[in-house]
């Protein structure tokens, strides 16, 4: 037993190391790319400012130093969780990002949770009643769901549910009603993908001998499904959920723009437009940490969900 545990810790250590390298790579990339978008000082010059004022402004933002110096200073501070002050909002960039993260996480978590729930029901029924009318309708809807661009879907939902029917608010942040349209818009693609996955995985599992055995010894169908079928499709579902979490964090940028949702995505778009380097860097760091963290978690979950999986 002990050598299995130690092998797991080696695996965790190795994965943590690669995760750190990946986050470092992401942060370095965005540091370079942000600086290529242009000079933030040129956006901040106000009428009446002389050469000296401009030079002072530049110095106060630390932009008068060489790129290498800026980079190492940035790395040194970032390790301590300090991403500098936003030159526009005049407060800690990391603080601003942390402030916005809950809204984005609420949106992505709701979207993923809702998608998983519906996908389990629809995908499950589709597999159990293969080739029935329900199955065919579900599969047609899945294809359509995978083909609707989120930003357009968002607009159409606003048009229908808010402008025409006055059922739901068209934009903004507040109670549950505000969450419905953005979460559905963001989650539809995952919903379609998960439904398809759950259907095909279930069909595969249900044709296995151990399911036939379970059925033939007279177990109720519900028990067969829970104990024998669902248990064996959890791993691929977790894999797709982890990947989709990353995709949804990206998709949230667009959905937040459409629905004026005060999450990290909108903050980032604004920051890129203003060349607000500290916010851009802090935001990308935060998203990369979340995405890498969730995938690491998924990797560790596998062994717990399926004891046959061993780390190597």
């Amino acid at each position, binding site marked *: 037993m002990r050598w299995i545990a130690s092998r797991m810790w080696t695996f965790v250590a190795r994965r943590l190391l*690669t995760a750190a*390298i*990946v*986050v470092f*790579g*992401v942060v370095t*990339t*965005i540091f370079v*790319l*942000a600086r*290529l*978008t*242009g000079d933030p000082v040129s956006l901040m010059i106000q009428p009446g400012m002389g050469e000296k004022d401009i030079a002072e402004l530049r110095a106060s933002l630390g932009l008068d130093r060489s790129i290498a110096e800026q980079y190492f200073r940035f790395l040194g501070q970032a390790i301590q969780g300090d991403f500098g002050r936003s030159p526009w909002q005049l407060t800690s960039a990391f603080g601003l990002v942390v402030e916005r993260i809950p809204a984005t996480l609420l949106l992505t978590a709701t979207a993923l949770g809702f998608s998983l729930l519906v996908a389990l029901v629809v995908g499950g029924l589709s597999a159990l009643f293969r080739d029935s009318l329900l199955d065919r309708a579900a599969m047609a809807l899945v*294809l*359509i769901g*995978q*083909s*609707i*661009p*989120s*930003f*357009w879907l968002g*607009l*159409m939902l*606003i*048009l229908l549910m808010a*402008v025409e029917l006055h059922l739901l608010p068209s934009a903004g942040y507040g109670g549950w009603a505000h969450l419905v349209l953005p979460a559905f818009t963001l989650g539809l693609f995952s919903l379609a993908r998960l439904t398809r996955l759950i259907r*095909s995985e279930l069909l595969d599992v249900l044709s296995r001998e151990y399911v036939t055995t379970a059925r033939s010894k007279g177990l109720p169908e519900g028990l067969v499904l829970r104990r024998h079928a669902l248990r064996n499709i959890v791993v*691929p579902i977790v894999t797709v959920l982890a990947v989709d979490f*990353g995709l949804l*964090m*990206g*998709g949230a*940028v*667009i959905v937040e*723009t459409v629905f004026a949702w005060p999450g990290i*995505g909108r903050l*980032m*778009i604004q920051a*890129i*437009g203003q060349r607000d380097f500290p916010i*851009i860097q802090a*935001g*990308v760091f935060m*998203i*990369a940490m979340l*995405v*890498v963290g969730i995938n690491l978690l998924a990797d560790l979950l596998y062994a717990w969900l399926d004891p046959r999986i061993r780390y190597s």
Partner: protein
Amino acid sequence: MRGLTRVSVTAEGGTRRSRWAIHGPAAVAFGVFVLLVIAAIGAPWLSPFDPRDGRILDSLTAPEGLGANAHLLGTDALGRDVWSGILHGARISLVVALASVAGAGLIGTAIGLLAGYFRGWTDEIVMRLVDVQMAFPFIILAITIMFILGRGLTNVIVVLIVTSWPLYARVIRAETLRLRDAEFVVAARVVGCGTARVMLRHVLPNAVTPLIVVATFAVPQMIIFEAGLSFLGVGMPAAVVSWGTLIADGRSYLDQAWWISTFPGIALMLTVLSINILGDWLRDRLDPRLRNL
């Protein structure tokens, strides 16, 4: 092998059908795709109006249906014809999608081949690069690069290539890892084939099926990404008519003129849907095992 497949189809369907016979949803999808290509090529001749030139007097005209000088799908705030815009937008969508898939496919394949064949450090570096890109929110990477390069057709294509090459690199790398020690590849090395020859003549041709499948499904993705970037105002310049800019234009007029955003979006959805259906069809024929790619 091919004969065997044919027989099994015959046994199932009763009639003699080639496995490449196209019917059902795939046939409809193919029809839609052909119409799209016709629209893209023939846009200047098929459009009733110049999509960039509107009469301000015709501003926000509701869809008028067919008729001489009628605005089939209405006009936008500047009086520009939406239907003509959709026809011209088809060109942008197709050009962007095909060019970016070709570019990213070429680069990704080359990188994937090198990583999978040489393994070691090359592979380690390439895979970390791929990891970095996967952890990087695509849309933020794309927006940042668009801000650096500026809006425009070529730049959109460049951004899509930069952001999507890992897709192909991963697939080709996995195939190459599988093939590099296969007997026929070892045999080719033993008889003295050079490295380049082994990679291009022996490994690559056997990795081409998953590549085709990935590329097919990437086409609608690229169409959506271009529209998304243009929608956000960082893709095609506002003066160029693309489906994304049309949808963005209509956004401010949702409550007065629903048609501006609605119809270009339907065109976009039908296009993506039809290529997705064709992709499914193609994959099932080439290799159904690639379903989870």
